[in-house]
């Protein structure tokens, strides 16, 4: 078994009496990718926010590259180190960039912070943005181009784990395919591991090796992505799978509320 870059153990998050995440454990091996599949309210985004330190876990541990990150970082050095371990690309490409900052400035700010060896030009090239686009402000770029910028900015920290929080969900189909191909290329080139938070099973299939399925804050099924999607064992996973439109699919009324 290869080195684990991210290990989450017995993670729990409560908001008052509401248990948003309950007893969640998984590990991501170096260079492999994991999908966290679920619908709204499943707790999948809360798990992501705890991993990157935007939420504090009520209980449980999170370790990245062997270092604990379950409690908030106090010192600036520790914050930057964590930033260089795990990064995130959010769903909304419109609010994830500072509207007053050019693309090149946004990327170079992060490069300076981490003292990285890469240049703005290299990162733009990696995500398929040209020189002219790098001098533009976000409002002059399309949603797909902005998402490429968000990916480049995350990669500027040279993270070992990149969390993709529904990162292609807001994109048009033709653009989504471009970004999915780009993500595959980046993974081949850098060896970064992805944690994909998604409700879209086809995207999950395309991008990940393993998956966990969450419902009501708990993991209900886990396994290699192909196997879980082709032969779902749990009733909820079967329902999810059966709800996806495809050839010959007809919507069927299920229960009355």
């Amino acid at each position, binding site marked *: 078994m290869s080195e684990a870059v991210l290990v989450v153990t017995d993670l729990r998050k409560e908001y008052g009496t509401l248990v948003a995440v309950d007893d969640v454990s998984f590990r991501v091996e170096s260079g492999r990718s994991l999908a966290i599949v679920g619908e709204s309210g499943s707790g999948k985004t809360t798990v992501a926010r705890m991993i*990157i*330190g*935007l939420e504090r876990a009520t209980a449980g541990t999170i370790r990245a590259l062997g270092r604990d990150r379950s409690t908030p*970082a106090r010192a*600036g050095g520790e*914050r*930057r*180190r*964590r*930033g*260089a371990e*795990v*990064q*995130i690309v*959010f769903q*909304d490409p*419109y*609010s*994830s*960039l*500072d*509207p*007053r*900052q050019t693309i090149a400035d946004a990327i170079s*700010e*992060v490069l300076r*912070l*981490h003292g990285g060896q890469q240049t703005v030009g290299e990162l733009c090239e990696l995500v398929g943005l040209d020189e002219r686009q790098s001098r533009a402000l976000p409002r002059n770029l399309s949603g797909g181009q902005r998402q490429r910028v*968000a990916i480049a*900015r*995350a990669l500027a*920290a040279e993270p070992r784990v990149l969390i993709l929080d529904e990162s292609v969900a807001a994109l048009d189909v033709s653009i989504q395919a471009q970004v999915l191909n780009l993500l595959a290329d980046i993974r081949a080139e850098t060896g970064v591991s992805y944690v994909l938070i998604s409700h879209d099973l086809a995207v999950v299939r395309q991008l990940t090796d393993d998956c966990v399925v969450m419902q009501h804050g708990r993991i209900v099924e886990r396994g290699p992505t192909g196997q879980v999607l082709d032969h779902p064992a749990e009733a909820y996973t079967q329902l999810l799978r059966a709800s996806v439109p495809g050839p010959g699919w007809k919507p069927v009324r299920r229960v009355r509320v």
Partner: protein
Amino acid sequence: MSVPGLRGTGLLGHVCAAVIVLALIVGAVGAWIAPHDPDFVDLDLAYVGPFADHLIGFDGRGRDLLSRLLAGARTSLLGPVAVVAVAVTVGTLLAVAAAWFGGMFDTIVSAALDVLFAFPGILIAIVVAAVFGPSLRSAVLALAVAYTPYIARVLRGSALRERAQLYIAALEVQGLAAVAICVRHLIPNILGLIVAQGAVLFGYAMVDLAAISFLGLGVQTPQADWGVMVSEGRNGVLQGYPLESLAAGLCIVVVVVAVNLLGERLTDRAQRGAR
């Protein structure tokens, strides 16, 4: 044709800006371009109307009114500038801190500001004047204290909205320090509203300072100041010589209207620009 900082404020915005710039120039050099010594008293000329190069005549102590208006521009404008500078700086810091930390800190700051908000500026000015003695500095201090809650409350809303933007979260995850995120990203993105609110407050501050000086709690005679001139002109008004109060009052009204109109337009623009 449009001045970059005034884009979207229309012709009126540009006219207002021109009036403000003119007022500031007068404030800076007024004492030197005054045709006569603003403090030279000649009781023989008391309430004498315009003649020769005394374009608007004399006040009750025979001082040249135009020269006093030009020389008085400085304190009349400096006061509001100081009030706005202090209130906007402290208000922005409180608003951004409350939005950033949220939770208990936000609750306490908001509650404290609400309490302070309940006291009118004039009341605070009377208290400050009683403690430190009446002076421009006391009046400025009092109004700064009175205006800070107002600006902090308005900016807190925008700061909260900006705080919730994902680019802020992305920078936090990168490990950028909170102060750096606020100074380099959050504040520049609400700067339009800060400037606009500052302009609106400037107008209020000018009127309130004039009122405080009128009450004798701000700028002291014989210092030339528009507010003081309105006050000193009272006797003239009763005797049928209203020119001093009118001229000083008109100066105040013109500057306040210009600043307020521009402030409103800048606020509109900042809110239009917000997503």
